[in-house]
């Protein structure tokens, strides 16, 4: 960290400075940051101004209104009395600048207010950019959003090559676009070809990648950071503009030209359509259109950017995405056992879940022992783990370290040494009890004893254990590496201490913990099941699978329920459905038939759809013949209802869960659905959606569906307690 060995006035630096290089401006005595709370400055060797941002009483640097107001004062003083060069850095260990203060977004009630806010900062950054000296952003750690835009307004950017250093403009993930000149300056700096993919996906880059594409001037080791910053600071300032555009080659110039730009924009737009719906996520499209109309050199580009951001900020999509961002923060800040040391995880059962949990833990730096009865049973898990490491770890030595942490342990020696023991074997009560009892017997007294069961009740498993209060459910979702959410299930017998330790573990492996109360299906599966079963019932009634999937996707779900069932595995769906005991078995006969025929979904190559190897996500997947036979023409009014039939079963179950206090509150429920079920983030969560649409309106629609399609749509009791 910079504070540690890069104090701006590092004595050794001054010591080795040849005296003849001393700049004539060294004698400056102006204190630029006098009276400012968040900014510190010191004039160093050769008149370089070291300018530090260090927010008072905050862990992370953000550009809040207060910070920006101080920056304005600072720029006033700088323009009066320009130093030889400016090096801008952060004094926070967490990183450079995380971006704008998102908490302030909600205070902007209308478009005009938002526009004023954005324009003011744009103007400020423009003044910063035009300061008559070199400005260098010295980056260590996160440099995101507004922070990255400020860095882009600097003449040069240098950053450390640490893993923690990430640079990028992720605004589209919050439903807006970079509004402080970033959407103009980035393509201007590195060319639209490289910039647009980054901007449209809100992608973050490592320092190395950022340096390769020209966003950074240098990616260096921590020990070289200050020297690199000094080097750029002391370059002759007339070279300033030249280097800013040196990255652009002929191709980039061509794409600036009007007709080519239009063609490229429409090409990108088409590609974008296959990924996101403009109605749900308008930000990326707006950004693309701005570039199409104004490119990067016209001053109109900045005002168009400001207007777009102001519009988007007031769009419900953005408001909801910001809400989702805060929901995520809420889960990360849940109460947990902070002082618990978690170094070693023992996983019993090397099936798909157990193996992937073990691999994920090893990837996240924990020592892992994976137990199963035979080595050959662990082999597939081992191979998948190596694949995961290859995907996530860029360096060979890091992959080797991860593989060294992943230990196959057929005897079960690891149990006695583990801090967390997770049982992930097949769903058999007595087998689970046996393993968990052994875990209690041999483990350290404060080790977490957890089960990854999805269909058995925690209380039933705990019933005859010698220390039932230690058992907690830690329910992962498949595929483990992709699903951010993990349910932490408390049975009635679970001690608060065990629950908090489990939450600490989940946070340690960088997943989002969702505390739930033990009930059949917990939260995610319980809510998902009526939705999936309704889809199967629709299929059975004669609607086509493609139509059903399309209807769900139109609501914003990332994949249709039929495809989802195939990826989860039909046997698992059936098991959960039976367990939840709410399925009229005749309505899902097709599910029984397929499972009986051995068509278990993606894993067996055939479920509702047929999957072939080497087939790269075709637009229209071929149907299983058994499913195709069911299709018939359906009345139009029913066709219009299919989306809502699935959607409302899901909402209704959410309300029921909320009413039964399966989770702490509506916010946690919304978070669970978004991160666990792929519930569309732009909607902000199911309960939030109902409240936005109006509880009464939703209830009316539900009652209408009940009238048409029967008892499944009977509103849950808790609807009456729900308020707008």
């Amino acid at each position, binding site marked *: 960290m910079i504070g540690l060995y890069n104090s701006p006035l590092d004595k050794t630096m001054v010591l080795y400075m040849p005296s003849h290089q001393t700049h004539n401006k060294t004698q400056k005595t102006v204190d630029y940051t006098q009276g400012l709370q968040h900014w510190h400055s010191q004039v160093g060797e050769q008149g370089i101004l070291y300018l530090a941002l260090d927010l008072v009483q905050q862990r992370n640097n953000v550009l809040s209104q207060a910070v920006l107001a101080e920056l304005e004062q600072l720029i006033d003083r700088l323009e009066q009395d320009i130093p030889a060069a400016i090096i801008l850095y952060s004094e926070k260990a967490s990183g450079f600048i995380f971006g704008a203060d998102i908490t302030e977004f909600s205070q902007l009630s209308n478009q005009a207010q938002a526009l004023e806010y954005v324009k003011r900062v744009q103007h400020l950054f423009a003044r910063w950019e035009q300061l008559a000296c070199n400005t260098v952003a010295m980056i260590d750690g996160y440099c995101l959003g507004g922070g990255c835009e400020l860095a882009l307004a600097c003449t040069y950017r240098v950053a450390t090559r640490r893993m923690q250093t990430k640079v990028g403009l992720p605004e589209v993930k919050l439903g807006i676009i970079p509004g402080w000149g970033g959407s103009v300056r980035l393509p201007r700096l590195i060319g639209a070809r490289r910039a647009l993919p980054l901007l449209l996906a809100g992608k973050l880059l490592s320092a190395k990648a950022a340096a390769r594409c020209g966003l950074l001037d240098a990616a260096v080791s921590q020990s070289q950071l200050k020297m690199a910053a000094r080097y750029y600071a002391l370059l002759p300032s007339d070279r300033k503009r030249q280097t800013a555009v040196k990255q652009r080659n002929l191709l980039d110039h061509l794409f600036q030209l009007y007709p080519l730009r239009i063609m490229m924009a429409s090409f990108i737009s088409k590609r974008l359509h296959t990924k996101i719906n403009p109605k749900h996520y308008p930000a990326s499209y707006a950004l693309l259109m701005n570039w199409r109309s104004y490119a990067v050199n016209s001053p109109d580009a900045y005002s168009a950017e400001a207007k777009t951001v102001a519009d988007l900020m007031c769009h419900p999509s953005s408001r909801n995405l910001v809400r989702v961002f805060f929901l995520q923060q809420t889960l990360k800040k849940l109460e947990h056992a902070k002082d618990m040391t978690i170094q070693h995880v023992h996983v019993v059962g090397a099936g798909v879940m157990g193996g992937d949990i073990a691999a994920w833990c090893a990837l996240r730096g924990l020592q892992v022992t994976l137990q199963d009865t035979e080595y050959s049973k662990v*082999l597939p898990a081992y191979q998948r783990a190596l694949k995961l490491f290859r995907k996530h770890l860029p360096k060979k030595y890091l992959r080797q370290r991860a593989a060294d942490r992943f230990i196959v342990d057929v005897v079960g020696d690891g149990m006695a040494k583990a801090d967390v023991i997770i049982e992930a074997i097949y769903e058999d009560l007595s087998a689970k009890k046996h393993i968990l009892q052994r875990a209690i017997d041999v483990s350290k007294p404060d080790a977490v004893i957890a089960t990854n069961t999805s269909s058995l009740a925690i209380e039933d498993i705990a019933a005859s254990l010698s220390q039932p209060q230690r058992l907690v459910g830690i329910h992962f979702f498949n595929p483990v590496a992709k699903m951010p959410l993990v349910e932490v299930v408390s049975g009635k017998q679970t001690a608060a201490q065990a629950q908090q330790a489990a939450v600490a573990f989940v946070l340690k492996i960088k997943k989002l913990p969702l505390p739930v109360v033990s009930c059949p299906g917990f939260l995610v599966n319980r809510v998902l099941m009526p939705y999936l079963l309704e889809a199967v019932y629709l299929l059975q009634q004669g609607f086509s699978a493609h139509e059903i999937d399309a209807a769900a996707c139109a609501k914003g779900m990332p994949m249709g329920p039929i495809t989802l069932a195939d990826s989860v595995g039909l046997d698992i769906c059936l098991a959960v459905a039976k367990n939840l005991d709410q399925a009229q078995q005749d309505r899902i006969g097709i599910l029984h038939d397929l499972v009986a025929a051995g068509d278990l979904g993606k894993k067996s190559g055939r479920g509702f759809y047929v999957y072939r190897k080497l087939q790269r996500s075709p637009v229209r997947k071929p149907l299983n013949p058994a499913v195709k036979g069911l299709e018939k023409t359906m009345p139009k009014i029913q066709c219009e209802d299919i989306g809502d039939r699935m959607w409302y079963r899901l909402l209704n179950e959410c309300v029921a869960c909320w009413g039964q206090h399966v989770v702490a509150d509506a916010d946690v429920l919304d978070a669970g659905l978004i991160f666990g079920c792929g519930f569309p983030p732009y909607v902000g969560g199911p309960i939030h959606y109902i409240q936005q649409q109006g509880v009464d309106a939703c209830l009316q629609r539900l009652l209408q569906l009940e009238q048409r399609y029967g008892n499944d749509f009977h509103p849950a009791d808790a609807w009456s307690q729900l308020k707008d």
Partner: protein
Amino acid sequence: MHKNSQPTSSSVSSTYARPVYLVDMARTPFLKASPPTPGSYAASDLAVSAARALLLRHNCRAENLDQVILGCVMPAATEANIARLVALRLGCGHAVVAWTVQRNCASGMQAIDSAAQAIASGQSDLVLAGGTEAMSQAPLTWNRRARAWLGQWLQAQRKGGRLSCLAQWRPSMLMPEFALKSGLTDQYVGMSMPQTAEYLAHQFQINREDMDAYAVLSQQRAHAATQAGHFAQDYVPLLTPQGQVVESDQGIRADSSIEQLAKLKPILHSKFGMVTAGNSSQITDGAAMLLLASEDAVRQYDLPVVARVCDVAWAGVDPKQMGIGPVAAAQLLLTRQQMPIETIDYWEINEAFAGQVLACCAGFSAPEYCQQQHFPTDGPYTEIPLERLNIDGGAIALGHPVGASGARIVGQLARILKRQQAAYGIASICIGGGQGGALLLQALSDPL
């Protein structure tokens, strides 16, 4: 029952100031080095696999170790001080020191010796020691002429210089050097290891039939031991990224017979030589790791003990007869301990070659030979009965990963002593270059 079945700790006058205990041992299955090899493990991979399983079994953690000592003859270029690399990969942390020892074929035993001395002197309490070798990974290098030419080429600045350099190139420069082959040749007496075995066989008039018979015995014993599960405790199976599980030693041939071995061509003189691939140790990859502890460490971490390491002796012999090393070393050990040879219940003599093992057996009962070679003994000269020697098979069946074998035989001997409820055993090994090593173990039946 053996006469020494009730060992008492005072019966051996150990040269050690503090007792040294052998806690446990683990090893990888030994993998054939000839293609197709499963996976392709570096020597450090093998050592890490074995050691992490070993550490997992006990109460102590990797960071509790005082040091890690590893024998390895030919670590890869990426494995400078391979012991340190292994220690770090095991999660020992920065503070645990580690060093690599090399005494050719006895490197693994040297590691145990060094560990035992560190514990005996009070320097260390808990030491991970062992050996590892990936002979399949032995490099092919450019020959000396090619290297010299390449150096010239890189230095040549002018075009003319390059041109004249090009003119000096010869096709012979394409001939690589096999590091494995050079490693298995004594560069002082100019004899390859099989040649020394032939020479030794000649000294003791051992013929091809004897060798093949012994090789078959080794195979049968190794097979029987595997079947009986005697190795199961030690094995740490390997998983390969290609999807194989290696659960047992690959070199063992259950169907080995004298007739089949008789068909093999001799290595040196295809018409009348005696040493064949069948009656020599196999070239293999593998690692064997042992955990050694002082009494304090045993109590602190509540560790089990299998045996006590009493003494280690090293002796130098004629490099041309390097295979006789075990006799010289064991005689030195027995003399030093003032133990008659009969008190040793079980022997491990590493099977570099069948002829060499038989020569060692005969050597113990050959006064003239021993005196002529100036071996340090006053007798009695007693032949070692085959029933007491390598009873679970040896390197002819299991393979001889040079750095690991010395550690493997010590661990194997400890298991045999325990199983047979015997008291004393000697593990000895011959060393290319003309040395022998011998290590005296005393079995311990009760926990401390």
